[in-house]
């Protein structure tokens, strides 16, 4: 699965005067996680806004929302959990594409 890639500042990655393209699975996941609902105007219901859950003690809802959104975006979700030291582990992929 290929897309136009973004750099660490989530700005367009430009190299040698051209846009960089490449495998984009992680980028799609990242964009889903950080974007608010309504940010993507074509699909206003898309976006998890993980930062919005920072104040939450209960992580179940966040995990549920991630799973729901990833499935809706066409991914196969193997496992999503949060480790004891607060790290979010995601094992999901877009299948064969």
């Amino acid at each position, binding site marked *: 699965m290929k897309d*136009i890639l973004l750099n660490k500042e989530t700005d367009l990655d430009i190299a040698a005067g051209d846009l960089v*393209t490449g495998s*984009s699975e992680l980028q*799609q996941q990242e964009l*889903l996680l950080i974007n608010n609902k309504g940010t*993507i105007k*074509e699909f206003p219901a898309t976006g998890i806004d993980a930062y919005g859950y920072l104040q939450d003690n209960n992580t179940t809802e966040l995990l549920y929302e991630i799973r729901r959104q990833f499935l809706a*975006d066409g991914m196969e979700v193997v496992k999503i959990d949060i480790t004891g030291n607060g790290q979010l582990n995601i094992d999901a992929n*877009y299948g064969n594409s």
Partner: protein
Amino acid sequence: MARTINEIQEDIIRQVKASHTLAPLNSTSKTAVWRMWTYIVAVSTWALENLFDQHKVEINTLINEKAPHSLRWYANKAKEFQYGSELLKDEDYYDNTGLTTEQVQERKIIAYSAVTEQSKGLRLKVARVVNGDLNALLPVQLAAFREYMSRIKDAGVNPLHIESKEPDSLKLTLHVYFNPLVLNANGYRLDGTSREQPVRTQVKEYLKNQPFNGTLVLAYLIDALQQVDGVVIPHITQAQARYGDLPYTPFDVKYNPDAGYLRIIDEDDLQIFYLPQSVIK
């Protein structure tokens, strides 16, 4: 005709897929950057196409209205009349330098105009707006307007009848079968939310909202009365109208007001009989 956002976007995506350099971009995610761009471009194109459509409509009306000396030209020129301004020498428009937009608007006293062609000459009906309702021009205004039209009209349009009359008078007799849970036998609302009789108000509103020089169709009036809360069956038993000092003539389907508009002049001209009726299923 403007295409929809979807049509435009699909077109762009088709082009992307067909392009040798862009085809590798195949991310199906809703967050795919390339896909967002197609959407952005599609929306802007869509906005632009809509603007073009509007522009076309505007230009078409402009062209139609400028068409020299058609009936519509007369109607529009009548609305351009400014009471108290002098026409430019040998021209058919005003020099408004030094006047504010409000002043110009104030001088444009003619709010409605309608032109009909007759076997000889033209007939021009006009009306002004006073306190939110149509009214005839004052004699002094009408005299000025006559002079204006006679200066700008085409040679040979003779006679050019110019009229601005009091509204035609309408007499209606209604039998209203009402829902006794909503209205009382005098036609007032039981919940007291309005001090007027809703049916009476609706008849007057309907006449007010008729287009200038439009035809009053009783069937449409009944449709409007049907919308009133609490009315089960509105039934018009008698409709009469007159213009000038002529006697009232009954009509049963439609009426074309001679003055261009018609009103209930006297409250007694609108007789409503209320009959209770439970809702019919």
